[in-house]
């Protein structure tokens, strides 16, 4: 069983491998990016580096996450920062993060699930823990986001 970092984006329970996830940031200031799509909610200064912040709930077609409009409490917004150097990126999520575990052969479960086409394209596995988290391939996800930004 492989551990992963589980987060909640809107109504989606997603997870990323520890090979990509680096830290959780609670206090941050978000700067909007002009003419950017709705799922690129802005850029944040994390430990002296500017990282783009993505809303995967909006990108996946699950509706915009309301975490950014919650100032405090359990539902307030946090950032999951991952990657190194120029490939660093952040995912906005709400609530508490949790550690989940998944088996490498759980891709069949993920492939048969009723997910949006965008999420299914970057799906890697499904967690064994409850509630079920969908483990995403971070590199493939960021390549997809970059390709959509370039068009």
């Amino acid at each position, binding site marked *: 069983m492989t*551990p992963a*970092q589980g987060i909640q984006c809107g109504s989606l329970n997603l997870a990323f491998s*520890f*090979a990509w*996830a*680096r*830290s*959780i940031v*609670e206090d941050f200031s978000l700067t909007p990016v002009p003419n950017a799509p709705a799922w690129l909610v802005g850029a944040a200064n994390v430990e002296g580096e500017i990282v783009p912040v993505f809303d995967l709930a909006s990108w996946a077609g699950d509706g915009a996450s309301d975490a950014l409009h919650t100032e405090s409490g*359990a539902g307030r917004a*946090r950032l999951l920062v991952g990657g190194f150097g120029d490939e660093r990126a952040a995912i906005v999520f709400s609530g*508490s*993060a*949790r*550690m989940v575990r998944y088996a490498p052969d759980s891709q069949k479960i993920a492939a048969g699930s009723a997910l949006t086409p965008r999420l299914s394209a970057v799906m890697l596995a499904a967690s064994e823990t409850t509630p079920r988290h969908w483990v995403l391939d971070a590199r493939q996800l960021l390549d997809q986001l970059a390709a959509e930004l370039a068009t």
Partner: protein
Amino acid sequence: MSLTIRQKLLLSFGLLLALLLMLVAVDYLKIRDLRETLNKTQSKEAYLGRAQAALWEVRFIAPQLIAITDPVARNKLIASEPALHEAIDRDVAIYGSLEGLSLEEIAGHKKLTEIVTAYRERRRDLAKLITEGKAEEAAQWRAQYTTPLGESTVKAISDLIALTQRKDIERRANQDQAAESAKYLTLAIGTLTLLVGAVAATLVLRSLTRPIKRLLTVLGQLTEGDYTARVRLATKDELGQVGLALDQLLDERLESVANQAKENDRLNDSIIGLLQTVVQLSNKDLTALAPVTEDIVGTVSSSINQLSHETGLALGEVQQIANSVRQTSEHVVVQATQVDTTARAERLALKEMSERLAQTIGQLGEVAALSQNSSQAATQAAAANDAAMRTVDATVRGMDTLRESISEMDKRFKRLGERSQEISSVVGLINTISERTHVLAMNASMQAATAGEAGRGFAVVAEEVQRLSENARQATGQISQLVHNIQSETSDTVFMMNRLIELVVKQSERAQDAGAQMVQTRDTTSALVGLVKQIAAFSQQQGELAQQLRLSVAQLNDGALTTSEAIALQNQSTSTLLSFARRLTETVGQFKLSTSPAASLG
């Protein structure tokens, strides 16, 4: 002598190259001699052969002149002869100028030159006679001079060619003999080259294979785990330097591995100490302190100590508040018991008053029938009325006391609600700490995953911290639920108190009304004493008044019954509140707290 591999190879190949150059030089010289001999023999025969051909062509001109009658053709034929003579002279002269001619060939050449010169002069005179048309003289000249000289010239050339061919055969024989001797020399030099090359290759190969075998042996020992193996080559060439570098690398590597093992042991000790502390904290012993070391675990230990310290402080406050709630609830129970006792006494008093009113009504009924005993009956009625008034006064005072007690209880319940709010704020602080600890543990887990194998122990600690923060969050959730229940029960109790106060006020007003009616009854009874004769006339009126009084007492009795039921409900709520307060105390009491948390941190 210590040589490097490069020097050894250069020396060996240089020696072989010198021997090969020597072999090539010998063969080249021999081949050059053979080529020169061949060129010389072929050239001499060629020059003489060409001169012989030109001579035959000159001699063939005379028969042609006899056969050809056309003057133009004859002149052309005669004009071509000098060129042929020049060719003969040139080839003969070239032959004589060649190197390496033997004495016999020089003598043959000299003789040929003389005959050719004489033949050319006789042929010029013959051509002159033919040109002048002196045929007979020309024939005589030809028979006498040119024909014998031509034959001599042909013979001289043929003899010289035969001599040259014989000499060339001798030269080739000599050259073959020299080539045979050169072949043996070439074979000797080649054999020597092979021997020298084999010896040099063997020496170089041995100087290379021995250190390499030693290196392979040491590498095999290292592969099998023998890290004490060393190369220690005696040579100072490149392989010797490689062996020395490998030995130094192994020494440094062993020292580094030993230092790494010590560092790992220290880190493992720190992690074990931290795990023991986490186990104590998991067993709700918040007095446990993790040893703070200088490594990375020390930071986590300090954070856990700070967390347990803050949690201990918060739980201490919760414990104090829970004790206050429990004491207040117990006090409320005592007061509720007093209220219940007072209400029971009130009901007894009302019952007694009701009985006396019934008795009064009966006596008033007898007034009409027993008018003759009216004075005595009036006296008894006045006495009963006084007693009823005292009872009503006692009831009014009891109501006032009850209202004051209930008001005090209401204030205490409101304070209880305020303290519950303080508990909620403290629980919120604990929940915030738990959430931050949870995030800290998640970040620690990700950093441990980034560290790979070295961070595995640290990942276990981070997971335990995460589980501890989750337990703390669940505990705060339970406490919040208990506080919420307390606040709800308190709110219901306050509501019941307010309702009870309203009932008591209403009952007090009714008792005061009863008292006022008692005063009126007393005045009426007093008037009965003086108006005995008017008793019959006013007996109906007194009966109605007594009936009204009885109804008022009945209403008062009903109010007292309602009050008793409200007090019973209040007692039930108070018991529930006391039960929750004790459960809260027990829940918080499961944590082992230090008597002086601030002092325990040092």
